[in-house]
């Protein structure tokens, strides 16, 4: 049996299983489409995230994958409330050092003061290590800033902690007075990680943390992420478009398409026994660095491009590109995300296990 509560069920405050750190219910994020320069008038909305629900267990890594525009980054940012969610709930259930569990808090509706406290527990590492560090601040300033904002320790204590953090992420503690431009992409990403760790968070969003890096550097940073998770008991929401990286790092994986979750299950089930036709196509499209395997693989080549999220298709969002779509059904009814096997959630009218990898 699974202990995952029915997806989308509204959870009353205080009734989350102890091992759940984050529960997202019916999250929706819309961006307005406006017309006019001076008198802006809303003429429509892009639903970037369209009623999605999922949960993350303490200490695990949930991978969120999908192609550009599927809403994975918007989901992550709405969860942290870096973007204001249009509707939905984001329950965070923190733990204390002594093992006791705090009452869940809804991040989506938290007031300023509660949110400020939550920011210590919820952190993010961004994709672009060039854009996410202030070029005019020293490394010490960048890594210490969260502590300064949250008034943690004296300046001397903060500097000590910066040095310690730099060591933890594999940089030299002597680098505190350097500027971001003196570092390579991989090193900058380590600085970003040190900053995210500064407040001892419990939950970290990693938004495409290695996609701007070269393969050999990518491997170093992925190893670091795993070491840190073991050392500090962190929980990760790992956003990526690279399905092989996600397989490597995640415990469970959710596949998104046009603002909705298409399939969600544990890592090996997703890669070995995927049931959603989009997952099949996505997995079959990823090249494997082995010419013998590549020669024998059959690719599912999808037709066309991803439709615009401002005008998503009716019914199943994937029906316009799905090789298995049945007219009259898939283009009319939206399939719910259902648990077809214990822990294996699929949103498809005609799910079927296909081995693609």
């Amino acid at each position, binding site marked *: 049996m699974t202990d995952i509560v029915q997806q989308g069920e509204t959870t009353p405050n205080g009734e989350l299983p102890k091992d759940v750190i984050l529960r997202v219910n019916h999250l929706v994020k819309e961006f307005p489409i406006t017309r006019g320069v001076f008198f802006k008038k809303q003429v429509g909305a892009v639903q970037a995230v369209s009623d999605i629900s999922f949960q993350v267990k303490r200490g695990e890594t949930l991978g969120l994958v999908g192609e550009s525009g599927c809403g994975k980054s918007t989901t992550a940012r709405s969860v942290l409330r870096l973007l204001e969610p249009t509707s939905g709930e984001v329950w965070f259930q923190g733990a204390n050092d002594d093992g006791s569990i705090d009452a869940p808090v809804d991040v989506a509706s938290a007031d300023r003061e509660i949110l400020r406290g939550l920011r210590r527990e919820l952190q993010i590492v961004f994709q672009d290590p060039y854009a996410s560090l202030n070029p005019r601040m020293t490394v010490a300033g960048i890594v210490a800033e969260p502590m300064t904002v949250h008034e943690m320790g004296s300046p001397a204590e903060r500097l000590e902690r910066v040095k310690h953090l730099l060591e933890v992420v594999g940089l030299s503690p002597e680098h505190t007075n350097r500027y971001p431009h003196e570092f390579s992409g991989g090193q900058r990403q380590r600085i970003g990680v040190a900053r995210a760790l500064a407040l001892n968070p419990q939950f970290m969003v990693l938004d495409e943390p290695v996609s701007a890096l070269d393969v050999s*550097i990518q*491997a170093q940073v992925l190893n670091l992420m795993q070491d840190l998770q073991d050392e500090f008991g962190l929980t990760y929401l790992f956003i990526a478009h690279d399905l092989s990286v996600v397989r490597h790092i995640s415990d469970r994986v959710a596949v998104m398409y046009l603002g909705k979750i298409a399939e969600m299950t544990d890592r090996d089930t997703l890669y070995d026994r995927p049931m959603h036709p989009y997952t099949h196509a996505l997995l079959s499209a*990823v*090249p494997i660095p*082995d010419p013998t*395997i*590549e*020669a024998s693989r059959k690719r599912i080549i999808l037709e066309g491009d991803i439709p615009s999220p401002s005008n998503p298709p009716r019914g199943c969002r994937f029906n316009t590109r799905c090789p298995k779509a049945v007219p009259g059904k898939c283009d009319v009814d939206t399939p719910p995300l259902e648990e077809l096997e214990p822990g294996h959630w699929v949103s498809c009218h005609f799910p079927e296990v296909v081995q693609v990898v």
Partner: protein
Amino acid sequence: MADPLLNVEDLRTYFSTEEGVVKAVDGVSFKVDAGERRGVVGESGCGKSVTAMSIMRLIEPPAGEIVTGKVEFDGRDLLKLTEADMQQVRGGDIAMIFQDPMTALNPVYTIGDQLIETILLHQDVSKSEARDIAITALDDVQIPHAGKVMEDYPHQFSGGMRQRVMIAMGLSCEPKLLIADEPTTALDVTTQAQIMNLMLELAEQRNTAVLLITHDLGVVAGFCDSIQVMYAGSIVERGTGDEIFHNPQHPYTWGLLGSMTRLDESQQERLNSVRGAPPSLINPPTGCRFGPRCDFAQDICREALPILHQSQEGQKVACHRSDELDLKSIAIGATS
């Protein structure tokens, strides 16, 4: 044996910067046969794109300069051609497609205008014949309603469609060699599969040689007959796909394969990463350029620059110790 289609010999392309001379390509030699699909792989700054730009003579002086070398194509040394003759080669016998199709297309002209211009430049046909050739080219890259699309502007297309237009433009003059520089890097994975599939089909049909430049070893595995791995401005290993992927002889190739996460492998242990970062090309390390990052480096590696030579295993490798190292027995992720 027939003469190779492309024969690059001891190519050296340097850039002068405020900090000093960057030896971006430093002694690269290779041959590509007609119809061969060659992969050029390596990480950023290894010189793979500069090699391609040098072949096309797109290096702009005074910042960059092809210092020495020979680029023989179809019996002619491209480095000795006049600029006018070179313009006939570009887009004619050698076509090139780039990573970012939006910047490669002119935003103020229609797709049709740009295709027709290319065709008129290289083929002795009338404007209406050029139009027909253009429509056929768009049909060949599976763009629906080709006739109508001719009137569209680049911004009306998605990334994948723009790259199809670039391929159509590249192949419209039936080149003997297509240089594709990271053609799918900016695209989503399902679109990448479409484009690579299309390029493979067209190249096979027309027996077009392809030089595929990419950082993605996976893309190369399914597409190329042969692969050369570049590091810090030179080729460190060259061989068939089987040799490179199943039996790498250079510690860098071996490390690169071990660094890769694989879709078909469920491993949650640590990746076998290459330590450190690539060296500066202004002041490269003496001896082997990979030496400072190599787990197997010895005194000789710090003293002498290894040259590309035939290894016992069949491929060419630039490593002093390749014959004594048995990387296969310790390869992680490289063999399965």
